[in-house]
């Protein structure tokens, strides 16, 4: 059909008819150049492209510069900026109440690995259907740059202080503890992070993404191992990611010799184009070994290390009604008069 050239072009919309504007948030108050801002952008793009209805998304965070970011994307989604280090429990509770929602948690390395290590462990075990993004800058940005528990051995503060404790590798922990989609990316790696986030949205279960995200104000100097420069110089991509969403009816052939394809929970496909021979991201032991080797070599390994697209999430194992518990009517949640009478009878 021909359209008249005088009509104003209709704005670009996604598969559910929303514009990118509908995915924006408030103005960021983070430092110019902060890696976290780039991640917010990637989240906006991924959610837009996947056509997630903003009202169907729950956003969670703890406390920190990173944890502020849910205010800077998707204002139309419901957000809970909770307390320092304990966001996983809040997210878990919300998903118990309403397992039909999409859920995204944004946290920092301090929030997750220092104060939050306990809840992190148990979130991973439960494999709750939540995308959990660690915006990892190796320091506490909001309290002015002290080392966090992901700071590498030998990394220095601006003041010259050297870190002498080993870093926690959240990806190894997550794989070991039960998360079913574990990857690492870099706030500066637009393409990889974008694909990873879209695949994350297609997954049901805990998606643990450790995204290195430099703190330009406190941890971007020479001597830091979380600076833009350091990561650019040391990044090793495990594979190239292509994500083919279920709603795009493309069935491109792929060669199992050069790519590994995973069918996601929602029917989408994640294709990992092999850069390393024989890497199988569904093999937990291989994933762990490769990560330990990378750490030993000082590589910043990125990619989707481990994926299990079919393991049930905790909330699905509970055998709860399909409708959200949150909105069940009184008639369903209050047993009858007879039930009470029977209970009383038993106690007489």
């Amino acid at each position, binding site marked *: 059909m021909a359209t008249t050239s005088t009509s104003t072009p209709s704005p670009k919309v996604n598969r559910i008819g929303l514009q990118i504007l509908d995915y924006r948030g408030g103005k960021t108050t983070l430092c110019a150049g902060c890696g976290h801002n780039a991640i917010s952008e990637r989240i906006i793009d991924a959610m837009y492209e996947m056509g997630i209805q903003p009202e169907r998304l*729950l956003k969670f965070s703890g406390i920190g510069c990173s944890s502020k970011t849910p205010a800077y994307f998707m204002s139309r989604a419901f957000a809970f900026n909770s307390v320092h280090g304990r966001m996983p*429990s809040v997210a*878990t509770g919300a998903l118990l109440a*309403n397992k039909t929602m999409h859920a995204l948690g944004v946290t920092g390395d301090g929030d997750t690995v220092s104060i939050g290590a306990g809840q992190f462990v148990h979130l991973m075990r439960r494999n709750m259907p939540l995308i959990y993004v660690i915006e990892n800058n190796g320091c506490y940005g909001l309290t002015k740059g002290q080392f966090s528990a992901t700071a590498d051995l030998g990394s220095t503060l601006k003041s010259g202080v050297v870190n002498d404790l080993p870093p926690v590798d959240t990806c190894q922990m997550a794989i070991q503890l039960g998360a079913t989609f574990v990857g690492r990316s870099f706030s500066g790696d637009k393409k990889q992070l974008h694909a990873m986030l879209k695949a994350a949205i297609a997954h049901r279960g805990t998606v643990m993404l450790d995204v290195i995200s430099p703190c330009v104000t406190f941890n971007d100097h020479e001597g830091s191992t979380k600076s833009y420069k350091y990561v650019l110089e040391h990044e090793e991509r495990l594979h190239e990611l292509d994500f083919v969403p279920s709603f795009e009816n493309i069935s491109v052939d792929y060669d199992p010799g050069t790519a590994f394809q995973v069918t996601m929970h929602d029917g989408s496909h994640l294709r990992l184009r092999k850069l390393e021979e024989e890497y199988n991201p569904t093999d937990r032991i291989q994933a762990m070994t490769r990560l330990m080797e990378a750490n030993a070599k000082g590589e910043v390994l990125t990619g989707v290390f481990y994926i299990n697209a079919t393991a049930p999430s905790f909330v699905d194992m509970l055998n709860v009604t399909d409708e*959200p*518990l949150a909105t069940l009517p009184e008639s369903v949640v209050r*047993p009858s008069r007879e039930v*009470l009478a029977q209970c009383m009878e038993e106690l007489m």
Partner: protein
Amino acid sequence: MVVGYDQKGSRMATTDVVPQESTGQLGPKRVVNDMSIQVATVNGSGSQSSNNVLLRSIFQMGVPVSGKNLFPSNIAGLPTWFTIRANKNGYIARKKEIDFLVSMNPETAQDDVKSLAPGACVLFDQPLALDKVRDDLTFYSVPYDKLVAPVCPEAKLRKLVKNMIYVGVVAQLLDIDMAEVEKALRRQFAKKVKAANLNWAAVQAGYEYAKTNLVKRDPFLISRMDKTRGKIIIDGNSAAALGCMFAGCTVVTWYPITPSSSLVETMIEYMKEHRVGADGKATFAIVQAEDELAAIGMVIGASWAGARAMTATAGPGISLMAEFTGLAYYAEVPAVIWDIQRVGPSTGLPTRTSQGDLLFTAFLGHGDTKHIMLFPTSPAECFEMAHDAFDLAEQFQTPVFVMSDLDLGMNNWMADPFTYPEKPIKRGKVLGKEDLAKLGSWQRYQDVDGDGIPYRTLPGTDHPAAAYFTRGSGHNEKAQYTERPDDFERNMERLNKKFETARSFVPRAEAVANGKSKIGIIAFGTTHWAIVETRDQLRDEYQVETDYLRLRSYPFTREVHDFIEQHDRVYVVEQNRDAQMSTLLKLDIKAELTPRLRSICHIHGLPIDARSVTDELMTMEGK
């Protein structure tokens, strides 16, 4: 004040015991349906079943009873005392004096016997030779080992079955109807018929032994009455579990801790039975969290998302919930928390009762915070207040604490059957999709109705204006981040107003006043049961009339202020050291009334008894 205690904490007083005219012979005096029976044993020895059978038998005879278990904080092998009180007047508080001791534990036997008042009665295991210890008591000895062998061929089981023998002996001595004992026993073992038969044989052996060998020389007797018809026996935690189920609770997250674990564990049983749909799917989720920080975090997440969510814990858990509770107060998220209080500070006495978390809970969380608390007194109130707690939490969008205690939660209470909740579930000010369509816009923290309570939406509400940003940092009416002093102050004052509004919605205090008495007593929770009896003692023994107010919630309702206004001297009785309820009252009442308050505090971890309160009150009255 420090006074001498015997091992189980009855004060070693010599003057405050009502003397019984027992001479060691069955004299003319008969003490009918008024006694406390204590079974001293070790935990893990299976005596719990025996004690339940005994309790139920008396109950079935129509005599009011209560059962209190004094157990150690370990799993097996340490001294345990189970006390059954039977009282024709319906007094169910702990009785200070033990009348009838069933002594099964060699380790404590000597001490136990020494702490009895003259005239009491002791049933003991023959080898203990307790009758050598004193000569002012009535003693009966039973050769348990000899009796148990024939009824229980399996040697391994004898340790357990032995305990059933004393049930038979006691039944015979007190004249409890063996038909009732059998009924109670078969109920206890339910479908385990073989076990029931074995145990019944033991009861009978005991009964026969007593009948043949023991000569009744004590005055205590149980005689059929009609005061328990239609009643139930239940512990407060089970009552709370039922209450929560009928209150429409949908999410429970918890971490085990004595004495709260049984609340959730019972609830799991009830919910599995009555809250699973025809399709086999549950209308609830109960999740064991990794600790209390996580449990309360999950409750807050679930409540925020729209569930009726709760947790149950005890003191240490309350301490760990402080930060999250402050968040819920300030971000205005509902939460229901059951605190089954035990003795603090710290780990304290995990298996003893207390009302010691009040002050800390009232202001839980740094900064200016205040919380609604409910004080159930009985299983019936555990049931009802479950409903109140969820309604209040959702109506006021704030945490609500139900302050039960170990005595109420874990002991056996006689109660009227619960009444079905007639009032519909109240979910508070929630705006749905249609409301939003009508309104066009709304503000999460705006005081639209002048009561300090704002409106909320539930996540997932399908309207572009539905979402808002929940945070524990400064926010304005629109839920936007702010550091403006005026925004902050306005919001804090609104929260204060909301708390004031709550004053008219929480369960009202109940006054029993004749309008003439100058002395008022204020109590709450399990302390109530001692006060009922104390007031009778004061009237009967001292001709002192008292009025009484039973608190049921914090903030305090109008009745509380009126009551204090109407009395010259007001005794606040509670089970903690620091007069915590008294403190909360002082903060709330007119300053002029403060001098009227006096405190009676008990902190030894045993349920408070009437006699001690009566004595202390009369001393303070200068008599």
